[in-house]
């Protein structure tokens, strides 16, 4: 490289033009000489894959990060630990089916029974998906590429949705495959399984939208985790207390509405019970007729509201 530099052994800049030269150094030229070294930079002339690929790459990267893949071992403990707990009832149910020829966990009740685990997964992993980018203010870097704000938000939402769907769909599918292999007496509960898979999609979409939206409002991971779990515990606690109070004054219709305060029962009432007609997973019955329509409207409304809040939040973050 040095043979290409026009003045070999010249001191690079620095030396004052008219000052006395430092002892021990050969007398340099009077004016500093700028040198551009050829450091072997190559121009990229491969294919440019464009916006869609960038968004897809961001989605996959976020999804891997949510499960701790590509991060240190410590980051894998929590997601995979929770995933393991999600698998436990499926494994136990298969064992019960194999040994006692009895059904364990019902498909539509799976998400409701394990709602604290799903809530903790959502709370602990959705701040990971959004908080670091906000905290280190790297959003303008993403947006200087072909990725737009909608692409970025969509990729984060898609990653969280996929993660939650996997969290629910894998145990349900394992349970169903187990049931098919064991060959229980009577027809397999295919319709229940399909209803619960549709439910898993609805759970994933609603919870991911809510979780990512809440997490995006604070750049602090700890506070994001606490906010999401606080809102889940509040909604489930309020719905339990309200339903118990309404039942104690013998108002069972109001008690049915009270269950819908909990997002897990809301999705159960809207999709699994309302559309597919499975048994309600709540301890009481949901409101019928208008209740189903209201639950579906609430699921859609909450999702749209969360996405709108996310977009607004990121418009603000991107402009800083």
């Amino acid at each position: 490289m040095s043979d290409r530099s026009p003045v070999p052994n010249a001191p690079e800049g620095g030396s004052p033009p008219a000052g006395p030269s430092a002892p021990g150094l050969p007398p340099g030229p009077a004016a500093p000489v700028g040198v551009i070294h050829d450091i072997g930079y190559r121009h990229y002339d491969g294919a440019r894959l464009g916006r869609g690929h960038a968004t897809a790459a961001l989605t996959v990267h976020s999804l891997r990060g949510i499960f701790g893949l590509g991060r240190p071992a410590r980051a894998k403990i929590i997601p995979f630990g929770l995933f393991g707990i999600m698998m436990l009832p499926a494994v136990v149910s298969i064992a019960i089916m194999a040994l006692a020829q009895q059904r364990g966990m019902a498909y539509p009740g799976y998400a409701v029974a394990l709602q604290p685990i799903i809530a903790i997964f959502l709370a602990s992993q959705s701040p990971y998906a959004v908080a670091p980018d906000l905290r280190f203010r790297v959003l303008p870097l993403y947006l200087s590429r072909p990725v737009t704000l909608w692409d970025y938000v969509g990729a984060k939402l898609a990653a969280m949705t996929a993660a939650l769907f996997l969290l629910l769909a894998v145990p349900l599918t394992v349970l169903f495959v187990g049931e098919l292999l064991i060959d229980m007496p009577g027809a397999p509960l295919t319709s229940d399984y399909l209803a619960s898979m549709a439910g898993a999609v609805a759970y994933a979409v609603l919870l991911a939208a809510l979780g990512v939206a809440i997490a995006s409002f604070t750049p602090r991971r700890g506070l994001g985790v606490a906010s999401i779990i606080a809102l889940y515990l509040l909604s489930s606690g309020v719905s339990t207390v309200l339903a118990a109070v309404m039942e104690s004054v013998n108002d069972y219709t109001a008690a049915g509405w009270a269950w819908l305060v909990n997002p897990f029962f809301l999705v159960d009432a809207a999709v699994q019970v309302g559309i597919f007609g499975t048994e309600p997973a709540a301890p009481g019955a949901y409101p019928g007729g208008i209740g189903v329509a209201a639950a579906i409207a609430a699921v859609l409304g909450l999702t749209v509201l969360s996405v709108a809040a996310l977009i607004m939040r990121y418009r603000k973050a991107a402009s800083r």
Partner: protein
Amino acid sequence: MNGVIAGISYRALLGRRRIWLLVLLPAVLLALAVLLRTVGADGERATVELLKTFAIGIMLPLLGLIAGTGVIAPEIDDGTIVHLLSKPIPRPVIAQTKFLVAASVVAVFAAVPTFLAAYLLVGLESGVAAGFTLGALIGGVAYAALFMLLGVVTRHAVTIGIAYAVIWEGLVGNLVPGARRFSVQQWAQTVADQISTSSFLTTEIGLGFAATALAVVTAGGVVWAGQRLRSFSLTGDE
């Protein structure tokens, strides 16, 4: 106890968005109490049930978590804790000061609303209000110490804290009776049971065990956090 550290911790805890969560939880408790009173379900049984499941079961661990980790974890996350640790202040004093801040915040935001909710529903009848207030106070202080220690020990303090509160105390505690012996909530209820004469509140743990456990967790948490800060090394983010 160091006044400056206390001031900084109070500002960090109460001056940002954290305060909304701290206010939201007691507000929901009071709203539920008002609602119970309005629909006429304000008997002693409903009151005990509300305080047991909502005040002690949900509000208290969450407040302890937000206050306990909130006094120290954000500073460790940002790395600004090094400015504090480089001052000639004994590290155990830092831990004690931060614990006192967290404990006082939990006392104000948990114990006072618990008393108000109970008073609103049953007045001072059969010591329910006094019992649950003391239970919430002592339990909240223990939670604050426990979760502050978690905040010093691990970066995932909040997640581990909620996993303890929700999975261990909630899920496992409901299924396995033995797990209840190692649950701050149950100890707090035992304290409440000692003062209240209500027949709707029954606990299985003796006061001796609960009081000892609460004292050990509180003192042990603060001392261990102080020791841990003495040899604290700031590692990078993941």
